[in-house]
């Protein structure tokens, strides 16, 4: 019982103090669970990070569920996930109640016009940073250019084509290329 409570409060704390999304949280998680409490081994933690990054959904939630499960099974996962969500849920719900009233002050609305510009810049620079880190194989560059071209063109010509399809089609193409490659490899091995 004490371990469940412990897990709950640590996740609550992490949910309350992670600004700036998933990657900021991973450092906090490592500090709490690997360095301080030694509940999870370093290698297992690195595996967890790789899985949290590659599965869909917010990285923070993925990590919380995984760590909770590894420590205390299903209920551990449940407690960790709920705890990590509670702070943002309460804070954002409170903000949502008075946000419109807040924006009705002229000066605040001016401030937010400036902020809107900043957010676009933040998204653009996040994208550029990921582009820098991406492996520049011909395959990756082809996928990247097709996605950017189609998405911008479709939005200009008001064609609706869901983001979901881009993701699924890219994944399927990658899988297909891999299957063809391994099939060819096998045939050559037969010769």
């Amino acid at each position, binding site marked *: 019982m004490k371990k469940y409570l412990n897990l709950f409060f640590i996740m609550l704390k992490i949910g309350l103090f992670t*600004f*700036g*999304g*998933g*990657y900021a949280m991973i450092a906090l998680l490592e500090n709490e669970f690997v360095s301080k409490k030694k509940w999870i081994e370093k290698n297992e933690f690195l595996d967890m990070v*790789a*899985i949290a990054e*590659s*599965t*869909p*959904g*917010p*990285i*923070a*939630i*993925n990590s919380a569920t*995984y760590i909770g499960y590894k420590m205390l099974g*299903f209920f551990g*996962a449940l407690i960790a996930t709920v705890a990590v*969500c509670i*702070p*943002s*849920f309460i*804070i*954002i719900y409170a*903000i949502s109640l008075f*946000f419109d009233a807040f924006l009705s002050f002229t000066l605040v609305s001016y401030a*937010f*016009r*400036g902020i*809107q*510009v*900043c*957010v*676009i*810049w*933040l*998204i*653009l620079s996040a*994208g550029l940073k*990921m582009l820098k880190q*991406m492996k520049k194989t011909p*395959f*990756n*560059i082809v*996928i990247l250019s097709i*996605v950017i071209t189609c998405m*911008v063109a479709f*939005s200009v*010509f*008001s064609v*609706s084509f*869901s983001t*979901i399809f*881009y993701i699924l089609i*890219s*994944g*399927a193409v*990658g*899988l297909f290329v891999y299957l063809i490659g391994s099939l060819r490899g096998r045939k050559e091995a037969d010769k």
Partner: protein
Amino acid sequence: MIYLELFLTFLQIGAVSFGGGYAMISLIREKVLMHGWLTEEELLNMIAVSESTPGPIAVNMATFVGSMQGGILGSFLATLGVVLPSFIIILIIAALIRNFLKYKGVQAFLGSIRPCVVGLILATAITMLMSTLFSFKNIDSTVIPDIKGLIIFFMIAVAAAVTKKIRKKPLSPILLILISAGLGMVMYSI
């Protein structure tokens, strides 16, 4: 039925957005604009609020949109929707498929999603830039550049580049948001 719609929409967002954080914005944007739950400006405001408050952007977004559309219950259902796929997928992986990432097929699938996600983020930034700073939403709209907005954009980019050169560490998003709030107050008051 707004409650069901909120739940299912955010369930979709939770289930297919790979890459976390900014990578989820393109899908969130598509869905909230399509349902008319937020305008482009409101969406940008909310991303700023999400960046300046703790917690994952997707959860913050779900809570906010849910609350606006369906009060506390809407808020709860949207948040549940966005979290549920992660929870189930991770449980399955943690319990059953220990070597999930070692399978070559999984690697091939995820490997080609990565450039796609980078493309989605960049394309989203480009379309947001066109629609907010040039009011260019589609081929039929007339282009009206927002000069003050463009000046702010330029100043932020310069500020970020200069501090990165001098301090070797980028400015935190929260600090940039505060700077741009000040710039907005000054520029649009003139």
